[in-house]
């Protein structure tokens, strides 16, 4: 078997892997760069999978991270439909599923994660949503079936619920906790989101103890401890398991993700980890943080490229986390990391289509959440993110006062 030798080998052709490859070229890195991807598709953006892709408003070519000619013009080799099976850290080599061996100077692990599965055997009609294939299979069934049960009230579950309602399905959300978004957002905010979904006809079941699925050839219902619910299609969104097995068997430190420093280096001088699979030291929070967001995948792609090009002085993992979620014609933007029990300062009102919450613990600003129609909340959340990044906590009465420009507070 022929042996391939590259400057930088990237395992995982997703958001983070692609962003690292292009960032390397933008920084002038000239050695061969190769991305290995288990999926047969070139790197694509996952956020539309629960939104426009489900509603068949966007196809694969609309959601590619970069179009295919860009890989050629940047001299980035894509090896798709190919799984990395083993890292040989001593030899600086990676073994692929077909036995091929690739040698590297630098190895970037950008392996993402996989949906947490419910126990029991797979039943047709029960879906998970991570890949484009998952999205198109689900989209086809949403056109064919009528009653959707979403299991897990996180961002992805709620986005699927919104998309399915738009498509005319009957939708319920089954949540094990006493409320939705319990891990990510304070209760007041979650309540406003639930109100919008209820307004759109979504039913919620809380404190649900799932006993199993009904149906033999295909799903016909969901059995909870105290009731059963009719459903001919279900989507399970109960979290992500980071893909860390390759790193673990290579002897790298793994703790809720592949452990790295603030420049995405693992304990091995030639191996880096980025994106959903990485638990990286965050200099702003002064602890390791594993983020599952599109912003983080892009930023860590740029950070690892800087580290490989030895531009280590200023680029590091220090950005205040930010993510968005679109539901109906409303959208969320969330900046910061905060305790979901933390206190809130409200600005604006959801009734008027635009609500911003500043979140603080013991008087220190820790987060900003916007929930509004279209992109109406974007500017305020962005300024909030900048306030957080600068470590500023403006007077609360000013934050709450819609007549005071937030941008002016940045200059206080």
């Amino acid at each position, binding site marked *: 078997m022929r042996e391939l030798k590259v400057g930088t080998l990237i395992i995982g052709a997703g958001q983070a892997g692609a*962003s690292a490859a292009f960032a390397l070229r933008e920084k002038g890195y000239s050695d061969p760069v190769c991305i290995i991807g288990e999926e047969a598709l070139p790197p694509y953006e996952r956020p539309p999978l629960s939104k426009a892709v489900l509603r068949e408003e966007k196809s694969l070519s609309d959601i590619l991270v970069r179009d295919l000619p860009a890989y050629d013009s940047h001299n980035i080799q894509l090896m798709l439909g190919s799984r990395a099976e083993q890292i040989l850290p001593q030899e600086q080599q990676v073994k692929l599923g077909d036995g091929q061996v690739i040698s590297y100077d630098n190895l970037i692990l950008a392996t993402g994660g996989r949906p947490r599965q419910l126990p029991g055997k797979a039943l047709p009609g029960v879906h998970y949503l991570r890949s484009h294939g998952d999205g198109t299979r689900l989209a086809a069934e949403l056109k064919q079936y009528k009653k959707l049960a979403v299991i897990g009230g996180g961002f992805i579950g709620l986005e699927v619920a919104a998309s399915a309602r738009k498509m005319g399905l009957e939708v319920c959300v089954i949540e094990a906790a006493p409320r939705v978004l319990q891990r990510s957002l304070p209760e007041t905010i979650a309540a406003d989101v639930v109100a919008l979904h209820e307004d759109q006809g979504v039913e919620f079941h809380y404190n649900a103890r799932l006993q199993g699925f009904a149906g033999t050839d295909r799903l016909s219902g969901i059995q909870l401890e105290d009731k059963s619910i009719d459903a001919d299609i279900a989507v399970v969104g109960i979290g992500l398991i980071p893909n860390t097995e390759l790193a673990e068997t290579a002897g790298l430190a793994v703790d809720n993700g592949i452990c790295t420093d603030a420049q995405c280096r693992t304990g091995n001088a030639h191996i880096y980890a980025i994106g959903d699979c990485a638990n990286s030291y965050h200099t702003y929070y002064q602890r390791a943080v594993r983020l599952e967001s599109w912003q983080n995948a892009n930023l860590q792609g*740029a950070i690892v490229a800087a580290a490989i090009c030895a531009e280590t002085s200023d680029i590091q993992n220090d950005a205040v986390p930010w993510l968005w979620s679109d539901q109906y014609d409303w959208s969320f933007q969330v900046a910061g990391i905060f305790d979901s029990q933390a206190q809130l300062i409200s600005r604006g009102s959801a009734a008027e289509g635009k609500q911003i919450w500043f979140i603080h613990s013991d008087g220190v600003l820790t987060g900003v959440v916007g929930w509004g129609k279209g*992109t109406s909340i*974007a500017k305020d959340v962005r*300024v909030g993110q900048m306030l957080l990044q600068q470590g500023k906590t403006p007077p609360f009465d000013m934050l709450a006062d819609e007549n005071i420009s937030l*941008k002016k507070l940045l200059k206080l």
Partner: protein
Amino acid sequence: MTDWVLACATDDIDEEDLIRFDHEDKTYAIYNTDNGFFATAGYCTHEVQHLEDGLVIGNVIECPLHQGRFEISSGKALSAPVCEDLVSYPVKVEGDQIYIQIV
């Protein structure tokens, strides 16, 4: 043939901000920055999203949807996810009126 179109008045746009301007079947973004007034295409080059709700900081506009960044004076794409530049249009101010040149 040059085609100057009246877009808005100078005080229609707050300092360090932008407004949307629609003309015929196209839409534009008109900016007021410390370095003067500028005009670019209205839609971000990443997805179909108008920049009007975006944040202007100095000579940079950030897209409200995914925070892609462009240089206002040139339309140049500055950071992921945007990689395609915005078309930018010449601007002239006469009195308190802003005109943009669209071909």
